[in-house]
């Protein structure tokens, strides 16, 4: 039995003081020898508990062995067999709660850095082979057409899997670029847009057609897709509509939803205004309301856009924050400040329609609520005024009503999500499947990809049945 190597190879990163002022990627990626050293730590467990933790069932020990053996094309092939977006997943998956949590070495607090190795393989392919699609063998076409609505992680995964099975897939995207949340939501410094586009390009190279600027429900309805030659429709348009707090003053100038702020910055490139036409305001002092990854992304964007002080305002304690630990740490290192157990009561006008302050109050934690987290309860008499120039509300999203309201016989929940069978993605409507945030409410990239995979398998079964 070889001696256990418990020293995880750290990820090289841009220094916090430097990266806090640029939009370049924070994590720089392993060099070859670092990847080799990390791959060498893998125990190659015969029971591979890591795979059980992966929503898309990547052969993790397999690709790690290939890295170890110096067989990089082999590692790429194993990875892409299950995952069409490895460059994305290697960067934004919460591996610490998935494959790395079930890794045998997790018990020793030194799980294999699977995400970093996945990223290493994806980046190796992008820089070494030029054409990502060189090794693809197209299957015989079945002649069956499938429409995929949206082009985020669930859609791209389903589209790729269906194309690999020989079906003719068309993706309909409402925005002017494909990628969904990977393009408009997650910032460049965490997920460079050329990497997203390279992986979108890979999906297209499988024969998937991309139709941009199609708002399904407006430009064409789901029922029209079904009667225009599409045998099946997979709905994964995301949970696009932002939630607000519903407190006084919320429509003042300077108060953004995180969706708007991030869309301006990431999709429309407001950080390069006026070269790009879309502006965004940050001012000197920014408050971000919320404790998830989107809140961290918003705060870190605001800092990079030149704000002097950026605060995360969150009503629970740090341990309850839904954001990845790594992102909270990155934010803290960069100088983001945290006001925990704090909640806004109202926004205060400067009398010209611009927000100038938030009235905040303190919270304490009571009994656990439905989510299992302790419920925050207001502490009376703790109100105070907190001056701000810009507020970003990052409280999550609810499904966009355009598709449910224009599609016959599609049953939705009281939250507005589409009622969907989790294991197959089937909805109440024949020939219509659903996945991603539209089915589950806001969740992660990889869980959406898992849903895309399951739906693609069930659609294939239906089309062949």
């Amino acid at each position, binding site marked *: 039995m070889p001696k256990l190597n418990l020293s995880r190879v750290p990820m090289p990163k841009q220094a916090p003081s430097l990266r806090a002022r640029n939009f370049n990627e924070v994590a720089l990626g392993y060099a070859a020898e670092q990847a080799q050293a990390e791959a060498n730590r893998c125990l190659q467990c015969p029971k591979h508990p890591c795979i059980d933790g992966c929503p898309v069932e990547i052969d993790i020990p397999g690709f790690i062995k290939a890295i170890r053996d110096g067989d990089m094309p082999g590692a790429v092939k194993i990875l892409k067999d299950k995952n069409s977006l490895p460059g994305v997943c290697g960067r934004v998956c919460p591996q610490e709660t998935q494959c790395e949590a079930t890794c045998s070495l997790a018990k020793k607090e030194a799980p294999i850095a699977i995400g970093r190795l996945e990223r290493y393989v994806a980046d190796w392919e992008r820089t070494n082979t030029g054409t990502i699609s060189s090794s693809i063998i197209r299957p015989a076409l079945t002649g069956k057409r499938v429409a995929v609505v949206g082009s985020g992680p669930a859609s791209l995964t389903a589209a790729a899997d269906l194309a690999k099975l020989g079906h003719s897939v068309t993706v309909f995207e*409402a*925005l*002017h670029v494909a990628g969904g949340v990977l393009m*408009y939501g997650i910032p460049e410094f965490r997920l460079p847009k050329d990497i997203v586009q390279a992986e979108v390009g890979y999906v297209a190279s499988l024969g998937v057609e991309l139709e*941009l*600027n*199609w*708002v399904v429900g*407006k*430009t*064409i309805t789901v029922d029209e897709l079904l009667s225009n030659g599409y045998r099946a429709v997979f709905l994964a348009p995301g949970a*696009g*509509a*932002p939630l*607000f707090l*519903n407190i006084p003053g*919320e*429509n*003042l*100038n*300077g108060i*953004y*939803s995180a*969706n*708007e702020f991030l*869309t*301006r910055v990431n999709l*429309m*490139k407001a950080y390069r*205004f*006026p*070269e*790009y*036409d*879309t*502006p965004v*305001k940050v001012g000197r002092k920014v408050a971000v309301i919320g404790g998830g990854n989107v809140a961290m992304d918003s705060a870190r964007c605001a800092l990079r856009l030149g704000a002097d002080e950026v605060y995360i305002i969150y009503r629970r304690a740090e341990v309850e924050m839904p954001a990845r630990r790594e992102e909270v740490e990155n934010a803290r290192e960069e100088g983001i400040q945290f006001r925990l157990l704090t909640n806004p009561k109202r926004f205060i006008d400067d009398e*010209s*329609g*611009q927000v100038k302050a938030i009235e905040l109050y303190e919270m304490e934690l009571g009994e656990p609520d439905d989510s299992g987290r302790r419920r925050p309860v207001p502490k009376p008499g703790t109100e105070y005024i907190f001056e701000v120039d810009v507020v970003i509300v990052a409280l999550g999203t609810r499904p*966009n*009503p*355009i598709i449910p309201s224009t599609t016959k016989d599609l049953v939705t929940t009281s939250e507005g999500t589409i009622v969907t069978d989790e294991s197959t993605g089937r909805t109440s409507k024949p020939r219509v499947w659903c996945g991603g945030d539209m089915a589950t409410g806001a969740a992660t990239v990889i869980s959406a990809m898992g849903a895309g995979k399951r739906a693609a398998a069930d659609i294939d079964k239906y089309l062949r049945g």
Partner: protein
Amino acid sequence: MYKILLRQNLVPDIHLFKVAAPNVAKKAQAGQFVVIRVDEKGERIPLTIADWDREEGSITIVFMEVGTTTHRLALLGAGDFIADFIGPLGLPTHIEKFGTVVCVAGGFAVATIMPIARAMRMAGNQVISIMGARSKALIFWEDKLRSVSDQLIVTTDDGSYARQGLVTAPLKELLETGEKIDRVIAIGPSIMMKFCAKTTQPFGVKTIVSLNPIMVDGTGMCGCCRVSVGGVTKFTCVDGPDFDGHQVDWDLLFARQRIYLDEEKHSFEQWQSQYGNRS
């Protein structure tokens, strides 16, 4: 890419484009809008649909040169392409047989009101239209609007053509004659819509306005276009653009339309220094 099939300069600074967008044309209805992006570095802006031709597969838009994006758009001509053209967005104007409908258009919104007046007429309404412009030189589509109206009243602010004054004056007179008016549709600059709504309010005539806040995606994703109607926050892009003018919080709309005045000025100055001489 979406090809411009036809360009007309209607009056100084106001232009008409007919754009090849068959998928949008197939679905367009009165009162809806498109979001366009001129080119790779452009912003997304909403423009109302002035007309459509389902057979030809075209959408007509009419716009005024105001800021950087519309000036850039105005540099294009027939045969050129617009990078992105998305729609039809928003809810269509509610059309039914109400009885007598007054359609009021301020400035270049005469292009927006055209398909609405036409649809109202086709639904069996008596349509009285009022169109107003600053001066004679800015009047266009008078005959077109007359052709879908039972009566047309034209005003100019400076009295250089037709009746002198604002559109609210003939609107008030119509309401005062005691003739039964069942609905008013008022579209134009926000301030004009506000005063039309104020004019009709004492008479209790339902007044629909088409709001024009700043938008980004235009599909309900960002909330930039939020307005307050009857004390409830609405997203103009998916809940509107038509709302009950008596319920709109106009001051909020005015304030939100001014968010980026400084940035717009900066962007426009920069644009002018680069390209301004060509226009």
